[in-house]
């Protein structure tokens, strides 16, 4: 993606382990130490049971729940990157991420295809993205 989209991007103390994980090419997600559920985005506490979450590294594999091929750059900063595939990916750990999918012709995109995490350096950030598994 492009640095323009990261102008307002600002990790907090709570979310920083997610982004530091991405820097190391690890997908690091919050899991509640009490009820064992995953949650994303990160919060100061588990919104399911109020317990204390801790970051754990997950496999980074899952399937596409939904997607869209963004064709038109309705915002000037998107001009260099259209078309791109914005997607929702259901990870094996029962948590869903919004992400982009690289490495597939948009015509090959489909709900249910298996994908695996990869990483993309964009300006100040490393973003977890996904590719066909």
């Amino acid at each position, binding site marked *: *993606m492009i640095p323009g*989209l*990261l102008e*307002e*991007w*600002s*990790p*907090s103390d709570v*979310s920083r382990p997610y982004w530091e994980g991405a820097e190391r090419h690890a997908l690091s997600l919050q899991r509640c130490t009490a009820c064992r559920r995953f949650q*994303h*985005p990160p919060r100061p506490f588990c919104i399911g049971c109020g317990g204390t979450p801790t970051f754990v590294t997950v496999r980074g594999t899952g399937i596409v*729940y*939904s*997607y*869209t*091929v*963004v*064709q*038109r750059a*309705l*915002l*000037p900063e*998107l001009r260099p*990157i259209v078309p*791109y595939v*914005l*997607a*929702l990916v259901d990870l094996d750990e029962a948590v*869903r*991420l*919004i*992400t*982009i999918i690289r490495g597939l012709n*948009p015509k090959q995109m489909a*709900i249910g295809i298996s994908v695996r995490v990869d990483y993309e350096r*964009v300006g100040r*950030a490393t*973003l977890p*993205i996904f590719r066909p598994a």
Partner: protein
Amino acid sequence: MGREACIVGYHEGPLDNAGRSCREIAATVVREALADAGLSLGDVDGLLAGYAWEEPSVMFASEIADYLGTIPTYVETACFGGASPAMMIARAARAIEQSLCEVVVVAVASNRASKVGRAGAIAALRDVLSTEFEVPYGAFIPPVYALTATRYMHELGVTPEQLAAVAVTQREHASLHPGAARREPISVDDVLGSPVIASPLHLLDCCLVTDFGAAVVLTSAERARAASSPPVRVLGTGEVHDRLTTSEVGDLTRRGGMVSSARALSEAGISIEEVDFAELYDSFTITVLLTLEDIGFCRKGEAGRLAAEGAFRFDGELPLNTNGGMLSYRTGGLSHVIEAVAQLRGTPPGVRLEAPQIALVHGIGGVLSAHCTVVLGAA
């Protein structure tokens, strides 16, 4: 229940607000709406305004009240995105029912097309998304709605042609309305042939970005008897604030409209079969199909087929968005309310339904997250 609230006046300003500030637009429509009700500024003791992000503002409704020289006992600024207009009607009705005030004005004002421009408006609306976890991936509106559309079509077997039928029907309604922004008829092929914005949504699956300015006046049923036009009764309202973060929604094909409509119909003591027509928030064609089903007008997955069969045309089983809605008439959800009131009064400028008695209005804000349903009845 004690006091009942009625809508006794409304006014919709011009489509083009170039050269005018939001407070100027709001002030003008408020005065005209009061005139429609046979009231004046001196009668106003409640004011709600909102859905305003075009100009810097800390307390928008208070600023409008001040600009008008009023000192109301009830004021609220509504920040529920596209659901703001319906939410304001619901809150205004509640304020009257609870005797917090006697005459309430609800106002929206926008120069988003003439001053902010389409790209500026799309950039501003993106602020509803997470700048940390969504925007960096190129998420904005419309693509986040497209994620819902793809999943909905996949699960329920709905086709692009069926989505397009919503836009075609509403354009037909707009073509009969003298004030609509887009009046030239379109076909399913026109929708499918328009540029893909974010698959499966084409340009003509997306609502317009226009200026708007409108106001609605409410008062108690008792006081409404003296109004200069037939009052329209607020029979019931319901709201819910469903999840905004798309990745955490769970089932994207079932959203908050189920909850808000059930609450509104229950409060009104009205069954869904008794509703004569509907004015539903229509940011995109997918929004309309999903919401029709969530409200219970048909079973999940049926709305697309019904749209293609013409069930939502003005002469169909459930006339829908009879002024053309945001897809063809103009942006700004008070238009949904005002069209419903005009139909119930028997004085609509465009499509005219045969003596309808019950209308259902539904507003949506955020990403299919903030929902408000309002059930209105003829006097």
